[in-house]
């Protein structure tokens, strides 16, 4: 049996791809655990000196990094909540066998295929305070008081960025939820109707539990993507106004451009650990919930 394995499922086929992954992904990830504690400032791994917690102290002492952490969390939570609720709403709508279902699915999925940078740049025009589509539209409806400085207002900017992310990615959730909905047997609803359950009760006790696996996928996908956010920030606001919309991954890029490689690596490691811990905790929490159900 072993000989059979060696010959037919040879490591020769495994190694080429795996090697790239190990060298270019795993090794740097391991390296980061050391170099985050050094004064790495040029492209030389050997001249870097160990500086202890120095980089992390700088990170935690500056207001900028704390803001970046806060922004990253706001973005992650806001986008996850809306991607799930709106995606679920759209999926329920599309599952009603409307005449326009095919059109609606095509349109709502369309943003998913576009490049984030292109979308973000288009939205920088749409959010324009005077000539932007959004404010023009609000004024047209007589809702002038709702017209805002969407991406130049410090308090608002993270939410405006989040909205673009939701606009771009809700389609994925919608398609996943739709597939989940279509796999629920119709007779479950029929017998519930006979038992006198109303639409909301049916949604809560049949649809939601059976959709849990798809909700879980969208939830994790969105959390992980959200914590890593970078493209959309650099293209839409470049971290501005001032530093009001910097995120952790954007900070890594800033440190990189300023040649603060040690600090940037520390920020990157922080992000790495944040995602690892978040995913581990959520996974534990959700699998425990699943057992209860």
């Amino acid at each position: 049996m072993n000989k059979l394995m060696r010959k037919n499922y040879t490591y020769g086929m495994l190694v080429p791809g795996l090697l790239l992954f190990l060298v270019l992904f795993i090794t740097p990830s391991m390296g980061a655990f050391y170099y985050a504690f050094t004064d790495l400032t040029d492209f030389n791994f050997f001249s870097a000196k160990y500086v202890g917690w120095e980089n992390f102290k700088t990170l935690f002492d500056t207001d900028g990094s704390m803001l970046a952490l806060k922004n990253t969390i706001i973005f992650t939570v806001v986008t996850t909540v809306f991607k799930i609720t709106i995606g679920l709403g759209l999926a329920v709508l599309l599952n009603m066998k409307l005449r326009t279902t095919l059109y609606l699915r095509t349109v709502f999925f369309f943003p998913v295929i576009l490049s984030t940078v292109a979308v973000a740049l288009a939205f920088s025009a749409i959010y324009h305070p005077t000539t932007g589509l959004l404010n023009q539209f609000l004024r047209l409806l007589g809702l002038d008081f709702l017209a805002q400085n969407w991406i130049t207002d410090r308090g608002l900017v993270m939410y405006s960025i989040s909205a673009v992310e939701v606009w771009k990615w809700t389609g994925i959730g919608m398609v996943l939820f739709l597939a989940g909905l279509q796999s629920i047997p119709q007779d479950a609803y029929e017998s519930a109707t006979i038992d006198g359950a109303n639409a909301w009760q049916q949604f809560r006790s049949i649809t939601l539990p059976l959709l849990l696996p798809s909700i879980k996928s969208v939830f994790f996908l969105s959390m992980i993507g959200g914590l890593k956010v970078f493209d959309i920030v650099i293209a839409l606001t470049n971290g501005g106004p001032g530093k009001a919309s910097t995120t952790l991954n954007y900070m890594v890029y800033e440190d990189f451009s300023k040649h603060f490689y040690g600090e940037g690596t520390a920020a990157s490691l922080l992000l790495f650990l944040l995602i690892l811990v978040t995913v581990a905790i959520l996974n534990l929490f959700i699998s425990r919930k699943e057992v209860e159900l």
Partner: protein
Amino acid sequence: MNLKLKKWWLEIMGVCLSGLVVLPSIIVLINSFKTEGEASDMSIAWPKDWNFVDNYSEVFRIGRISTAFWNSILITGSSVILLIVLCSTSAFVIQRRNSKFTKLLQVLLLGGMILPLSIIITYILLYNLHLTGSFLAVILLYVATMYPVIAFLYIGFYNGVSREIDEAAIIDGTKGYGLFFRVIFPLLKPINATALVLGFVTVWNDFGLALYFLNQASKYTLGLTVFFFAGEKSSQWNLIFADLIVVSIPVIIVYIFAQRFIVSGLTAGAVKS
């Protein structure tokens, strides 16, 4: 009757909601045809002066679009081919061996799918290998970063390919690499299509890695040109919009002709993560 009326309301509501996607897209398209002055209003009105040819030829002339287009094709094409070849083979061994070692590998792959790349360390590593600024660097990085998700796609697929096929082939005398390339690979068409679509859209639309690693104008991908172009021409919306359209056209064409594959490919990638 009541039910029919309700359905009409839902249809209307759906179409109105779709405006949230359609309107911004139309604004970009219409304004890419206008003159600079007209486009600065960013209205949805039909252009008074059609500036179609001027805008688009200007974008091609100053936006370095044609070079960038070929760069994007080269990078995306090579990455996707490498991904399909390397992941289909790796995944086959991982799924068929099913040993402690390959289980450990799957944990590593899971980590690779979830965790971010330590980009600065990777940069310095590639710098010391004299690869930064080269297409090879980004191609290898796209393969390395997408390796986990695509490998898992194939592992999932192999779970459904019976071992009896292997055994029958081995008895017939097809062994080793022949088993994979002559017997298994021809079965992979559907999953190859999924991997192709997922790889194409992800690499074509990527911006982050290209920004870090391709720092010469002659090496820019389409995503990079549009970013720098918008930075330079910050008020010429007609040109920026024309550029956005040019950059998006290839994926839109693929979306129109292969929508089923795109939707299933991208969602398959999502579920695996």
